[in-house]
Structure formats: C-alpha cells, structure tokens
C-alpha cells in the first residue's frame, strides 16, 4: 500500500512538474534549439535572447504587460476587499430594512452563469469610455458574490462580546468595524485579497476582448497576441509564459496555506 502510494504520487509529480520545467528550459534556448527534434531538456548554450526579444518589443511589450497586470490585479484585490468587507459586515452584524432581499439577490447571482454578463457589460463599459483601459479589467469583475459570502461567514464567527463591549465604551459603528472586526479578520482578508489577485491576474476572456492596443494589454491577453504574431516561436512564447507564471507561482509558494485553505473552505461552504 505504501509503495503503491509512493509510486502513484511520484508519477503524478513527474506529470505535474516536468511541463513547467520544460517551459523554463525552453525559454533559455536559442530559436533553433527550441524547435529541435528530439527536444533537449537542458539548453546547450543557455541564452537570454528570447527574453531580450520580447520584453520591450513594440508590438508585444511583455514588460509593459507585466506592469499592467500588476497594477490591475493589485487594484482589483484592494477594491474587492474594501467593498466586500463593508458589505459583508453590514450583512453579518447590522439590522436594516431589506436585508433579506439584498442578501437573497446576491445569493441568486451565484447561480447566474457569467456568460450572460459579457455582452451587456461590454456595452456598459463602452458607454463609460473604459474600453481599452485597465479600469475595464479592474472594476466590473469586482462585483462578485464570493467575497461577500466569504467575509460574512467569517464576521458571523467572531465573538460578539468584543464588539458589544466596545459599544459600551462609547465607540460608534464605524470604529467597531475598523478597530475590532477588521483586525480580527486579517487572515480572511489576506486570503480574499490573494484569491482576488490571482483571479484577476489570470483572467483571460474579458481582457482579450476589452483591451485592444498592444500597450494596454495584460499578460494573459498579451500571450494570445504574442502567439498570434509568433505562432511557432516557442522560445519567445515560453519566455513570456515564464514571465506570466513566475509571480503567481512565487506568491503561491509563500502563501500556499492561505490559497489552499481559502479554496477548500469556500468549497465546503457550498
């Protein structure tokens, strides 16, 4: 049983890791070696040519895309965390008329497939003059129900006594939220911001259609542009893929626990 498990896990690990290693290896190959049969695992003469060719190219400015993706994903994560935390706190702790309707309509949209929103949101974003700007990939997707649910659940689990005693000490609603509830929720806020960052960084369909200028694209949309321009220059494609994956892989390595627990907890809630 033990040997079987080790064998299985070993084989799976090979299947999971080798494509990534091959991607990294190819990004350091010359154009000739990248298209060579049979492929080599270790570059014969490692070179940065592929990176130099794409990082500042005018039609495929990968470095610029990297900056765009960083800005968009960070701004998106901040927006999601702020708006969701406020709304979730109101839904968890405050009493107001219409609370059930608000909550029910947020719940209901969990069952609405996102495809239904694509066409009308394009029209809306167009009317706001956001097309071909990063705002288009930062703001509309921030209205997701997940963050509100996730944080509401967390706020409900906080002990009420702390907040009540703060009220007795004369704190107002805002102070209780900002000074008691938020600091106690840091792990949940960290998880939500990580997941939001990752989701936005990796978003593909929407940026492909709402961003069209070469210099305004995100890395994921840019990869499609790069592939269209250099469909079999695998050295260039792998270099860009490495640039697009390294930041998230590094974040994942250091914050693995938050990401995985965030995902599995959200799954269990369902």
């Amino acid at each position, binding site marked *: 049983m033990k040997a079987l498990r080790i064998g299985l896990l070993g084989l799976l690990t090979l299947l999971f890791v080798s494509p990534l290693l091959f991607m990294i290896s190819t990004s350091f190959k010359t154009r000739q070696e990248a298209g060579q049969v049979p492929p080599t695992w270790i570059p014969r003469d490692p070179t940065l040519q592929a990176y130099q060719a794409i990082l500042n190219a005018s039609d495929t400015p990968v470095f610029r895309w990297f900056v765009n993706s960083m800005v968009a994903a960070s701004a998106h994560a901040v927006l999601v965390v702020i708006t969701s935390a406020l709304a979730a706190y109101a839904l968890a702790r405050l009493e107001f008329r219409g609370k059930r309707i608000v909550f029910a309509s947020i719940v209901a949209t969990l069952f609405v*497939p996102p495809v239904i929103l694509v066409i009308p949101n394009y029209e809306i974003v167009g009317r706001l003059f956001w097309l071909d700007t990063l705002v288009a990939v930062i703001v509309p997707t921030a209205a997701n129900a997940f963050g509100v649910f996730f944080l509401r659940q967390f706020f409900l689990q906080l002990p009420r006594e702390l907040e009540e005693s703060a009220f007795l000490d004369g704190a107002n609603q805002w102070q209780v939220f900002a000074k008691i509830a938020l600091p106690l929720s840091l792990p949940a806020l960290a998880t939500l911001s990580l997941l939001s960052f990752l989701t936005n960084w990796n978003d*593909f369909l929407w940026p492909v259609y709402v961003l069209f200028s070469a210099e305004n694209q995100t890395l994921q949309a840019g990869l499609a542009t790069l592939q269209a321009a250099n469909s079999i220059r695998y050295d260039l494609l792998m270099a860009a893929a490495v640039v697009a*994956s390294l930041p998230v892989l590094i974040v994942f390595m250091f914050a693995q626990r938050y990401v995985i627990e965030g995902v599995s907890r959200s*799954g269990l809630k369902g």
Partner: protein
Amino acid sequence: MAWVFLAPYLILFVAFVLLPIVFGLWISLHSWDFTLPGKPFVGLENYKALIDSTSVTFAPFWNSMQATGIFTLFSVPLLIVIPLGVALVMNENFPGRNLFRGVFFAPYVLGVAVVGVLWRFLFDANVGLVNSVLGGLGLPDRIPWLSSLPAAWVALVAVTIWWTLGFNAVIFLAGLQDVPRELYEAASVDGATRWSQFLHVTIPGVRPVLSFVLMITIIASANMFGQSFIMTNGAPGGETETAIYYIVEQGLSSFDMGAAAAASWILTLALMAASVLVFWLFRERDGSKA
C-alpha cells in the same frame, strides 16, 4: 448606517451584475451592433434564427453547443474521479504531504493563457514533447494532437485535468477530513473491508462535497473557452469551438451583439436545466437512502 456600508458594493453589483442581466435581455431583442448608431428592435427574431434550421446562425451555434456538450460529457467524470482518487491517496499522514498537495495545486494558479500556450507547444505535432515521449516509448509519434479529431478532444480534456485537478482534489481532501474518524474505526471493528468502508463511510460522508464539486465542475466545463481559443482555435474545422467561444466571437468580434445575447440566454437556460437535473438526481438518492 447599514446602507453606507453596503453602498460601495451595491453600486458595483447593480451596475455590473443586476443591470447587465436585464440589459442583456433587452439587447437580445434588437439587431444590436455596438459600432452602429441604429439598433432596430426585432422582437424575438434573434431567438427564432437560433432555433430555425434554415437560418445562417443555426448550424454554427448548435455546433458550438455540441462542442460544449462533448467537452462537458468527457471532462466532468474524469475531473471528479481522478481528483477524488488523488484526495483519497493524500488523505493520510505521510511525510511531504503538504508538498505534494502544493505541487498538484500549482497549475491551477496559472492562467488558462499560460497553460494553453505551454500545452500547445507540448502537443505540437512536429516539435512537441508529447509526441517525442510517445516515440521514445515506441508508440505512434506523429499524432496531430490539435488539428484532428478525436485527438483534439483528448488534448483539451487532458490539459483541463492537468490545470484543475488540484482545485477539485483540495476540496475533496477537506471534505474527507471532515468525515469522523470514529466511523472508520466502528466500521473496521465490524469487520468492514477497505472497499466497503469506502462505499459505506467515505462516499456518504463526502456526498455534500461531491455534489458541490460536481456542480461547479459542470459549470466550469460548460464555460470552457481559453483552452480552445489558445490551443486549437476551433480546429480542425470549427468542431472544437465551444458555445462561449462562438458567443463572444459573434458578439464582440463580429459585433452581432443581439444574436450573441440571445445565444447566451439559450446557453444559460441549458446550463440551468443541467444544474436542476444534477441537483434532482442527488436529492433522489438521498431520499431513497433515508
């Protein structure tokens, strides 16, 4: 006071979720081109065209629905069974467990664009690693993975498994860990084999998680877009162009937004019907058990 807390979120929610749902229906009743000033009202014409077999949009739309159906049918069972198997293997304490969990989850943190570009390279018929490895094993090594059928479906499904296995496995693993240890102990005291423990303790224990994962996997597979867009471009001849792919190309490249909005409503209704069916199937069995 509560509304001050709610306002920022609700503004976004109304503007980019509630309003678009209604607005999308409105668009679907028009001949709507984003780039043209006139958007004449056409009633149900867009819907009629999609279900009228003599119209020009009929064949491409239903071909794309079929592609989505094929992909969902083949990917979902594998995306349930394999991650559940991996979760079962991982559901014991052994050294390096978290490391393995991290390795299997890692592809999921990559975007579909990275995954697609990488695997398009690996599946390249001439210089790809997959054919080269197959050749090394003495198997056919000239397979045009991305431009022939059924190879393209095999490639698209395999890539999707590689990409999202870890996500489903992690949710299963959390579910497995919530099954009380005592139940296993009681079962083994009663002389239950590992297999009957699996059937009578594990499966009922993870049933809620199972139905949740099944639901989100069906929705994810039915929304498949990036893999086709990047890897096959719909090849060989439009057979792997999925419904989402068709809808966004129709709406946001050809700017026939009315027809695209109508198509997205039909896809949504199909998806909702599928969800209700799955929900009902799972309920039914729970009832017979009780």
